[in-house]
């Protein structure tokens, strides 16, 4: 199989830039990163079809002269899927902006809480809550 070096290089560059943008905090930049990444991946898919040839219509040209239609079909599918994903992400970025005034990916507050809890465990009263909350045998006296 012949491989087109230009396509491979372009795909590599796009994927690289996309990966870099994915590391950003702003959802809009992540979105642009995904656009670049998906274009790069699609070009990589295109390069797997080998040498470009005639349009693959049955009967119009000899089979050996045709392009491989399968990667192109796969790229079309991938483009549709990426389009939908991007539209959804865009809607989420907008919603996030509506709610918080920015579209930055937020840290998980619960996570940070647990980490703090771990640091404090030895000294604070919360130790009793996480380590031995069941060692009491008071008569139950709740009303309803």
């Amino acid at each position: 199989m012949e491989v087109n070096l230009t396509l491979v290089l372009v795909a590599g560059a796009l994927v690289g830039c996309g990966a870099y943008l994915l590391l950003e905090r702003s959802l809009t930049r992540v979105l642009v990163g995904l656009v670049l990444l998906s274009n790069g991946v699609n070009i990589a898919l295109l390069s797997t079809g080998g040498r470009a040839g005639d349009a693959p219509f049955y009967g119009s040209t000899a089979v050996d002269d045709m392009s491989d239609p399968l990667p192109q079909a796969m790229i079309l599918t991938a483009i549709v899927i990426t389009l939908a994903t991007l539209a959804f992400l865009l809607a989420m970025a907008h919603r996030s902006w509506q709610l918080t005034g920015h579209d930055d990916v937020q840290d998980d507050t619960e996570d940070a809480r647990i980490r703090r809890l771990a640091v404090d465990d030895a000294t604070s009263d919360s130790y009793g809550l996480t380590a031995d909350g069941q060692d009491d045998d008071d008569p139950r006296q709740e009303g309803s």
Partner: protein
Amino acid sequence: MTITSLVPLPVLLPLLGSGAALMLFRYPKAQRLVSVVVLAAVVVVAAVLLVVVDREGPQVVWLGGWNELGVALVADRLAALMLLVSAIVTLAVLLYSLGQGISDSNRSAPVSIYHPTFLTLVAGVSNAFLAGDLFNLFVSFEILLFASYVLLTLGGTGGRIRAGTIYVVVNALSSMLFLITIAAIYAAVGTLNLAQIAVRLDDLPDSTQLMLHLLLLVTFSIKAAVFPLSLWLPDSYPTAPAPVTAVFAGLLTKVGVYAIIRTETLLFPGGELRTLLMVFAMASMLIGILGAIAQSDMKRLLSFTLVSHIGYMIFGIGLASGAGMAGAVFYVAHHITIQTALFLVVGLIERQAGSTALLRLGGLARLFPLLGVLFFVAGMNLAGIPPLSGFIGKVGLLEAGIADGGAMAWTLVVAGTVTSLLTLYAVAKSWSLAFWRSPQEAHAMAEELAVADGVQTAGSPTVGRRGQVRLDTTSYDAGEVREAGAIVDGDRPDRDLHQRLEDDGMPTRLPVLMTAPAAALVAVSVGITVVAGPLYAYTERASLDLMDRGRYTTAVDEAAR
């Protein structure tokens, strides 16, 4: 019309049902009827398929008559079992969410979207189990992911958008990785049909095979949440509505595990990367369960045990022996039901007591004894207490590990036992905190926490302007204290159990329509113990099929003629 015509039905029925449900959005009753009928039909079809496949070997359909060039759907023993279990679980979850929709008068969630999306999710999951083609597998992942994006961000509240962002970006990235893998495999062997890839891969140089193998494993490990690639899961699952979390936790990760089983048996048999798999299996088990122990919220705790128990399945796969594979398949079937059941029960707790934070709960055993029984049975099953099905699954895996006899396998046997015990500890902790102390004790403990630590609880400086949480390691746990302060402060709307009881603000009766499906699923997970003999024999036959990949490739080949 032959019996093979049944094979596409688990995909077709939910897809058509989804369309019908979407058209019926003005008629909620008709919509519910369509969803229930469709999913019940899928259960029947899956059961018939299971019997047929077990008797007559793999059933293959080449769609559209494009033999050898087209897309094949393959139902072998493994796929049929997965289909049946997932159909039962999704039906139970749907009934539960119907119960929730009927019992809760608040209609803020866009219910008209819920049913079509849920059915699409089921179609995607079924398609993933049946896919005999790598690109078809990619498409089914996308179908189920898209449905899951919508379900996860249902209502678009702040918490769900935050969780959804992480989930969507991680999964979009893994989809890109999958496409790169597909491109590499197509470039290497010129086909994407799994059976054909299996035959042609052997001609490739070892290094190329290794690269393709690793690419596939990384892609599927993100979906399956194997340890270093699992960090997205506990962040994104717990905020979703209870039935959604339940079905995600039960099914979506198992689709990833299923894909790993396929890759390891069909494409790359021989267990070349077994050490690697076992190392990550151990990491998933131990780190997952240690994470679970640290949590103070039941939903998050369960999400971490999910990551941890994925490790058991990867362990079975990593053994690359018939016994290991049989154990892994049994464990997948057990874990789908038990994890979903537990999340449904926790959803009930959340609905009744208003929270899943262990800080706020107490005394549930007296208030809702049935809930206590359900949680206890499901929790013990997860931990693997005999004679429940979790015990049988773990014993199967541990026996397979001992039979293997290698140093790595023995290490994992030990790690598996430790994980099982730690799971018991984690479940028992939430059981005793939520069910056995009195609400007053819980309230007093929260009060104490607020008074002891909280001098400066005002404001919320922890979340910065740009969303980063500042981690001030030298100070007290501000979040916990704020939470405790909120509980003590009587004016807050989200009161803890003690305060609610004092105001008589507690719903005292369990909603039957929600409890029944949850109880049914717990019963199914216990029922797995009853049918464990035949079921384990079935998974052993399935693993024989898997270990002898010739059966799969010949069946696909013959169907093409």
